[in-house]
């Protein structure tokens, strides 16, 4: 891999982080809009080791927690778990193709929301049901679709295979 390739990869991650704070609010209902920051984390975890992925997840989650104090710490816990499991699962079980990556993005979003909802203890009963059965799957779907588009458009930059080898 050339040195410039590495920079391109991080450029894509930075672009996704910027989209989170600029474009996301214009994409309709906030509960279903794609989570670009989590997408950047998941794309990072595809290429990295579980330890680094867990650390990156912790940092991203803690930063997000500073903006959502109702669940401080729960976001860090959730993204740590998602980052670690994503990197570990990709290495151990998953083949690399576009559909599998889309499933990873969907499940990553859903599991992240599940852990936040349970760990924060703020959502219970009907709220928890709506969150896990309606809003989280929709957000996972939009995040997965966005992730597929990003991987397809930047496939040479992020070095993620979009077809099975």
């Amino acid at each position, binding site marked *: 891999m050339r040195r410039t390739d590495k920079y391109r990869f991080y450029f894509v991650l930075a672009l996704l982080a910027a989209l989170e704070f600029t474009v996301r609010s214009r994409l309709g209902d906030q509960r279903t809009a794609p989570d670009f920051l989590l997408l950047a984390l998941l794309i990072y975890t595809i290429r990295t080791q579980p330890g680094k992925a867990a650390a990156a*997840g912790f940092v991203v989650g803690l*930063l997000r927690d500073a903006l959502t*104090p109702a669940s401080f710490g729960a976001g860090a*816990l959730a993204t740590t778990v998602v980052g670690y499991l994503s990197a570990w699962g990709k*290495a151990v079980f998953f083949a690399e193709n576009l559909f599998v990556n889309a499933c990873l993005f969907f499940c990553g979003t859903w599991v992240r929301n599940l852990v936040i909802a349970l760990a924060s203890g703020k959502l219970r009963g009907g*709220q928890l049901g709506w969150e896990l059965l309606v809003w989280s799957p929709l957000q996972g779907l939009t995040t997965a679709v966005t992730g597929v588009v990003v991987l397809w458009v930047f496939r040479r930059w992020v070095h993620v295979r979009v077809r099975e080898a």
Partner: protein
Amino acid sequence: MALGADRYTSRVDTLVFLGCLGLSLTAMSLPPAWRDPIASVMRQTILAPLLQLQRESELLRTSRSRFDAITAQRDSSALAATFLPELRAENERLRGLLGLGQRLASGYAPAEVLHQAAPTDPLALVISAGRREGVRPLAAVVSPEGLIGLVSTVDARTSIVVTWANLEFRASAMAADGSVYGIVAPHGTEGPGVWLLELQGVPYRQLVPVGTPIFTSGLGGVFPRGIPLGTVIGVAGETEGWERTYLVRPAVHPSAVTHVMVLLGARGGGDLRNAFKTDTASIGGRTPP
């Protein structure tokens, strides 16, 4: 199993994972007195450029909406744009905010809501006004439809708003004519009534008809008198011979607002009933499940 499993699951990875889990659990168990300053420092340092970016983006969206509205009035070719539901709603909301600002006797600070992707976002919002704009803790946060919540933490350029959906929220409330007083709190999380409020502590002999608008009473000195909270939609429960609890449809849902106003006047002062929309239909608002 596993292609490269040994390479990818080293002991160091496991230790880092466990360390991060431990730190996360520590963060969750921090008391608010420790947690809030840490979050505040993060918002004012590493997150400041990103929040500024989000703020500029929201301002850009607002400016563009206004520009589109003016263009639509002058240019018939832009007429179609005015029929986009989202743009019309945005314009209506901004006009409402402008009208509310003129009607409010006390000072206010306009702010954009910087929504986040977490599922707990409706419980505590980040807004783009802080100490520099004169925002203080416990200031009331309103939209043209009614009360959103109150400021809990103030940074230099942002603030955290605890919304009415937060289980810790309470507001002293009254019926429109001042005949009934009670405490408004979130209805809870069970059953189909999530994202509703309830009016608690109403004496058993005092009946509150369905459709009665509920306002803040000003008692307690936190919220000014007369901010719409919602509309009574039924009885939630009763303690025989003692008191009734009524279900209240909130005037506005936190996830639906994009712009708010922070009241800067003296806490608890004045009656704001005339400053808000008075028709009960508008108080009914949108209430997602």
